[in-house]
């Protein structure tokens, strides 16, 4: 049944999508920002995939891309289609789909705030969870959470006795760590 569904989608959209059967009741398809609306509309209105289960984002920093993942479900076939779309990390723009599922609006606000992806035509308040945020979107992988915590929050009194593990060992053994190698220390 999964294969039939995939064949049906490929037949309809031709080279605009590619995909595979991932496992029982799970089909994965890859498409583009220009085709995703058509795919979701077709799946919802023609094939009966009426429920948007989840909509989220992955930062593929090594490939300089974000991946948007739309999980849609049909209560009849009980199959979940994982539709994936890559967007350029430098200029991340994707189409708004909240006219297909109203609740996509909330997902899109969150993804916009956490990853900095713009959804064309999205009407919603800019701020959702973060207040007066001036840093880069915090779910991007190049956001240094530890560094942010360090500069934003003060250390509670009583933490001054913290020790560095490597330094502790060096002090005990008398090892002389050359300066140029310190960038490789933990």
């Amino acid at each position: 049944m999964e294969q039939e569904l995939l064949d049906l989608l490929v037949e309809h959209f031709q080279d605009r999508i590619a995909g595979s059967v991932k496992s029982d009741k799970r089909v994965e398809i890859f498409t583009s920002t220009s085709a995703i609306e058509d795919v979701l509309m077709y799946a919802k209105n023609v094939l009966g995939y009426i429920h948007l289960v989840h909509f989220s984002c992955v930062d593929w920093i090594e490939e300089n891309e974000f991946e948007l993942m739309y999980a849609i479900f049909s209560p009849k076939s009980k199959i979940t289609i994982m539709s994936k779309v890559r967007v350029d990390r430098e200029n991340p723009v994707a189409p708004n789909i909240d006219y297909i599922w109203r609740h996509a609006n909330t997902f899109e606000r969150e993804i916009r705030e956490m990853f900095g992806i713009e959804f064309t035509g999205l009407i919603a308040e800019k701020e959702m969870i973060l207040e007066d945020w001036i840093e880069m979107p915090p779910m991007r992988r190049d956001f240094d959470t530890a560094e942010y915590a360090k500069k934003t929050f003060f250390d509670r009194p009583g933490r001054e006795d913290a020790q560095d593990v490597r330094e502790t060992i060096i002090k005990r053994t008398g090892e002389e760590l050359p300066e140029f190698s310190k960038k490789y220390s933990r």
Partner: protein
Amino acid sequence: MSFFNIKGTVNPLTALAQFAKKPHTLRFPEVEVEAKDRYRGVHYNDLQACIGCGNCSTICMNEAIDMINIAGIDSSKGDTGLRPRVDNGRCCWCALCVEVCPTGSLSLTKDYIYVTEDADAFLWTPGVDNPEGVNLKSFVSSKEHSLNVYGRVPMKELVGMERVKSFAEVVLGYEEAEARLEASRCISCGICTEVCPEHMHIPEYINAIAAGKDEDALRIIYDNNPFPEMCGKVCTRRCEEVCAMTHRGVEDDPHDKGAIAIRWLKRYVTETAPTAERIKEIVNPEISESNGFKVSIIGAGPSGLTAGYYLALRGFDVTIYEALNKAGGMTMWGIPKYRFPMDSLDKQVEYMESIGVKIKYNTRVGVDIQFDDIYSNSDAVFLGIGYQKAWTLGIDGDDMPGVIAAVDYLREINGGGTLDVGNKVVVIGGGNVAIDGARVSARHGADVTILYRRRVQDMPADWEEIEGAEHEGITIVPQGIPVKFIAGDDGKVKYVRYLKAEMKVEKEGARPSPVAIEGSETDIEVTTVIGAIGQEADYSFIPESFKDKIEINRGRIITYEYNQTKDPKVFAGGDTVNKTADAISAIADGFQAVKGIVKMLLKEE
């Protein structure tokens, strides 16, 4: 709609029925509900299992975890003595600290209620402040779901019976991708550096390999070890024994227990520099201008060469006197070539000579040059003479033809000689030298039996050497005490007579010792007996008058800080000084002596 709506008045009253029902809420704190499985409440740490590696503190994105000294926990080998303390006011309960804990000592509990008026009381040392947490553990780390990778990248080797056909190197080394993968398993705690006699900068060079910076890795290694290729192939690697990744074991790797393959990674890096010129190009050491001081070194073994290399870098005029025609000491003459090939060693010695270390080969001190001359013409002398002389077996008939010492045999073979041992060899002893002698004989086509007084698990040899010997078809006869060698008609040894032994604990707590079983005499037919029960130093080149000046006690030279002997001008290192008698300890001795000589002659730290 009428003015008076009866429904609007009566319907709300139905809510009164709720008074008769049980409430949906709980009467906290009288009633408590146990949290669900895998709940992430406050931390608990098993203080005995924790080794203070600090991985939890490093991963914490909220900077909530400090490593601190706490009363009652002392540092030891393999344990930094530090323990984590959590600022629960900062913790976001992501549990990454638990996911990366290599020992599995850290967990999160079902305990989630903590009320205080003092916000600073949120600083908690798990395990110390909540010993009761041991029964409340809920989010625990499992090896399957940990973010650490426990198994090591396997090393490719020649198969057992293929090996005995030649002296080809048995271990094949990591490919680049394998090395990167293995290096990326390291959590960089540095616990390994403490047990390394030389305190090499292990986490730093492993991280450099993981980052793809092999040249930086080689530079870091050369900072305090001029013999990385040798250590990369034959080091006793005590570092791997205490590796944080070993604590939870790996089922199919009972010996290494999944320790980071520190030795193989070092080997990988050295193989990226295939020639002495390339080493020089990469390491590009800073060589100080000549300072006019002369240092003489006796013995071109690991300790002498190490001292020579670092002294030459500091501008000393270094001359090494070597009795034989090649440098390397026991690593040249003792270790068989299938473990440590000749070109690996030559490359390293050649590099040392290229930066100014002078080696006088075929110059035996006491014969070709007198010790007194060296002593009076030098500002400092380093003795790295090693243990060359084999102990005699002390058994009836041990002087008959066909009974030889393993070190002499290995020296002969490693020097390119041929010494026919025949087709039936018995090796006596259980150390690495014994196994080397056995495996070399096997490569010359002999049927080899190792006779050892104690059990196999008591053998001081490396487990991989023992296993290697077994794979190559060598028979190990444990609990066998040789008592007599019997000559054949030609006067050569023909039989070894031994007694079977049983292990008895003589004193409580002592290690069991072998006691011969009477009447259990067995004879094995042999063509050659190879003895390998230990070595000692040959001090005959040192004039009697001088021996008193540099205390020699029970065959060892006594040294003080910086490996200085009682005579301040004389330093010593290697097998004659340390008890561990391995190459890395010799390197450490040489390195210490350099510090001492620099301090003494250049009057600086």
